[in-house]
């Protein structure tokens, strides 16, 4: 018999609603809002509710089973909290190794470095400065399918190796921002100066090494902060330090096997994979902690132009987002570097079982009347929100028919035959738009241009005779131009 991934997973971390149900009070009191305890158990296993939503389990008589349930529901990768109050960020908390096994929790926050030798403000254009960089992190914003994507944290590094200098830099940062912090230095006395300045902020300490672990562990205990273990390309040391520091009494750990640019990429990816696999598939609790990736090391690798180093940092980041980093430290704040990564991070932390889709129906923008243009698109959320934001931006009154393509974008839906002349005709008919407008023109996406002729035939088949198809732009940003040129359509001019 071979040991399959699935079997190992079950052996190490098997959990079914029944296991949980058996430990619940089984009163079916509905106080949690669910129909019965079994339904609550199913949601618990799916991490859709928290155990504390069950009032009876919190009672004294259930203390033992409550503890047991907490244990069995604990994620295989421990959740570590950095920061306090509303600005705290949780990292790790992963239940599985592969995304298709279960939704990944806690999107990896990205921290950006400032150093204690940077000026507060740039003195000449292009100079890196503490407050400027912090503000840039805070102000980063990209609206993606109706969600605001942001950057998350500040990592203060001590390049001065001087406690006073570090303390004053950390002090400036804490005065400037509420973002959670990482303090970076290998010198315990410098670290302590920073911790004093950041008191009450619960920063992540970076990092304990084979040389300073004892002092750093003391600081973590004294200041109540999570502690990173840094063991570059040495998993024996990483695991040994984990064991040692746990026994020393530190509970919240973060692991760094090292992010190596250039020729070390393979070791980086293999180390991250091995550590995560031992934790998830092998049940190794010494390695069941969040992993920190530091793509910023690209800047300490081979000499190259700024652009090339930022490029390298960008793609290493994307690889670590795919391969198990639970938190990242970066340098480049350029929009072109960050955009693919914040989007990829958002994507990979979505529920893999759920297509990102919107309801297939007729949507109205502004106050459409009987002569308003009628557009059609697919129900993939990104497609819909893209078209929506463009239509809103242009102003005006429109109808938008959303066809059900099982949450797939226009181009893929056409290729995969989810969007066909038949499905378009059906969507138009079901939308009831024909009763709302006097004209008979349907504007389809440019990506579906090939379907235009057939669609006119199919529209006839669903008793929408006389309807004509206008091929719209390949991207909805071109809608304004299309309308300017082609709306209202003149007889004989439609495509």
């Amino acid at each position, binding site marked *: 018999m071979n040991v399959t991934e699935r079997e190992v997973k079950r052996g190490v971390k098997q959990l079914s609603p029944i296991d949980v149900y058996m430990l619940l009070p089984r009163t079916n009191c509905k106080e949690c809002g669910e129909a019965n305890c079994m339904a609550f158990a199913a949601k618990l296993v799916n991490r859709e509710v928290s155990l504390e939503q069950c009032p009876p389990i919190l009672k004294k008589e259930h203390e033992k089973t409550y503890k047991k349930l907490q244990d069995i529901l604990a994620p295989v990768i421990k959740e570590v909290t950095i920061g306090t109050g509303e600005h705290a960020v949780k990292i790790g908390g992963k239940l599985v190794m592969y995304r298709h096994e279960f939704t990944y929790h806690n999107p990896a926050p990205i921290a950006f470095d400032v150093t204690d030798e940077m000026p507060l403000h740039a003195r000449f254009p292009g100079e890196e400065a503490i407050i400027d960089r912090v503000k840039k992190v805070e102000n980063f914003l990209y609206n993606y399918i109706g969600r605001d994507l942001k950057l998350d944290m500040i990592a203060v590094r001590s390049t001065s190796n001087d406690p006073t200098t570090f303390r004053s830099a950390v002090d400036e940062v804490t005065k400037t921002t509420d973002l959670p912090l990482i303090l970076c230095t290998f010198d315990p006395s410098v670290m302590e100066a920073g911790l004093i300045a950041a008191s009450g902020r619960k920063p992540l300490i970076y990092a304990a090494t084979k040389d300073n672990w004892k002092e750093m562990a003391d600081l973590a205990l004294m200041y109540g902060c999570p502690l990173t273990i840094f063991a570059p390309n040495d*998993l024996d040391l990483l695991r040994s330090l984990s064991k040692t520091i746990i026994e020393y*009494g530190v509970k919240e750990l973060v692991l760094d096997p090292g992010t190596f640019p250039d020729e070390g990429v393979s070791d*980086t990816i293999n180390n991250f994979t091995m550590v995560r696999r031992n934790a998830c598939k092998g049940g190794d609790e010494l390695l069941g902690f969040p992993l920190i990736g530091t793509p910023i090391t690209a800047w300490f690798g081979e000499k190259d132009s700024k652009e090339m180093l930022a490029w390298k940092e960008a793609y290493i980041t994307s690889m670590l987002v795919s391969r198990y980093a639970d938190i990242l430290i970066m340098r480049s704040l350029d929009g072109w570097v960050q955009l693919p990564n914040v989007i990829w991070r958002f994507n990979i932390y979505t529920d893999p079982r759920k297509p990102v889709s919107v309801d297939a129906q007729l949507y109205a923008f502004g106050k459409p009347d009987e002569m308003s243009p009628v557009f059609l698109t697919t129900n993939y959320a990104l497609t819909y929100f893209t078209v929506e934001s463009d239509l809103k931006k242009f102003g005006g009154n429109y109808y938008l028919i959303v066809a059900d393509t099982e949450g797939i974008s226009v181009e893929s839906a056409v290729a995969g035959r989810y969007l066909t002349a038949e499905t378009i005709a059906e969507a138009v008919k079901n939308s009831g738009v024909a009763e709302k407008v006097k004209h008979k023109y349907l504007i389809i996406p440019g990506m579906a241009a090939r379907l235009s002729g057939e669609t006119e035939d199919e529209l006839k088949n669903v008793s929408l005779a006389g309807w004509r198809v206008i091929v719209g732009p390949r991207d909805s940003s071109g809608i304004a131009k299309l309308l300017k040129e082609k709306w209202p359509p003149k007889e004989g001019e439609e495509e």
Partner: protein
Amino acid sequence: MKTLGEEEKKVATKLAELLKLLGLEDNRDIELEDVELTIGEIILDPSALTSATLKAITPPKMKAVPPLAPTKAKPTTILEAPFTPFVQEYPGKIREVTLGATKSEGGSRGKPVVIGGATTPAFYLFEKTPPNPPVISVDVFDMKVTLPKAIRMQVEDVWEDTAAWAKRAVDKWGAKVLTLHLLSTDPLIKDTSPAEAMKTVEEVLQAVDVPLIIGGCGDPKKDAAVFTKIAEMAEGERVLLSSVTLDMDEAGVLEGVAKAAAKHGHLILGFTALDLNRAKELNRKLCDYIPEGDILMDLTTAALGYGLEYSFTIHERARIAALMGDTELQHPVLSGTTNAWAAREAWMNLGPEWEPRSLRGPLWETVTALSLLLAGVDLFMMMHPDAIRTMKKVTQQLMTRGKAKPEKIANWANAKI
């Protein structure tokens, strides 16, 4: 699967009752899995485990880390806890496939390219180094096409001369494989005839000596006619016909294409839209006409920001299922990575803070490619020279372990940039 014992039957009955309570008895998928989870006690057969595996497995009910007991002395030296990687054995293996054939093999290609053969998940070098690195095929079109500016700049002087475009890709960008997209054959574009398309392929075969992938236009019947003609003409070249679909089967033309490919010694790419069951169905059908070793799969590449996560996860799932023994998924996989440019973030003017697009665009393609590289893709169709260069370099770096230089980053936290 072992048979149910009395105890397990009882649990199963109990479970069925509970599910009924929930009104879930008709809901097959999720609940059945739970039934299995509940009653299927897993017994790990020690004889099947390597000694390394045994060492690595800690008992499932490992003792929780004891809370810090005030009486217990804190360690003063590092407690040794060596690392042993958790390794696995996989019953399955990805088939190895050769693109292109040399003169002595019946073709005229200079260097055939071997892909596939993986016996572990992608780049698990701690288990085994992959036998063949993933390969990049560069896109060439048989007509002027709408291309983002970042790409257009690289090709606009040759884009009306397909053979010259092909030579540019090989000589200048170092392409080891080319994809020739016969876009003009689309009935809705130029409706170029199969005979003309064949001529274009012939020209390209003469202009360059790398293996070729022949891309159709997406119209099932037209593609079948074009592919069949080209299969005959390019006898023995081991070109990859990209792609065939279940739609072709519905249109009754799949058999003809697959048989032509088999008869004239070519490979076939089966395309399905993010659906492993359909991918398996198509592969089963193809196996009736063509050796299973001549089939590749395209499971759909959605652009970053446009559903890449679906592609990523379906590729991971397919690769693990194949390694676990699902023979219908043990074909090498191809990604149409150029699709990355479908995302507006790859090419659109979003304002000065997101510039330059000349970097953002190729990075978009690079990130799309690297994500799928880690998910197990064997063959990439790509477009932008900078994205291709990075992919090649990273792929090469990923093939060898033990080159990390700890001293380079040991002091990074305190180092000046």
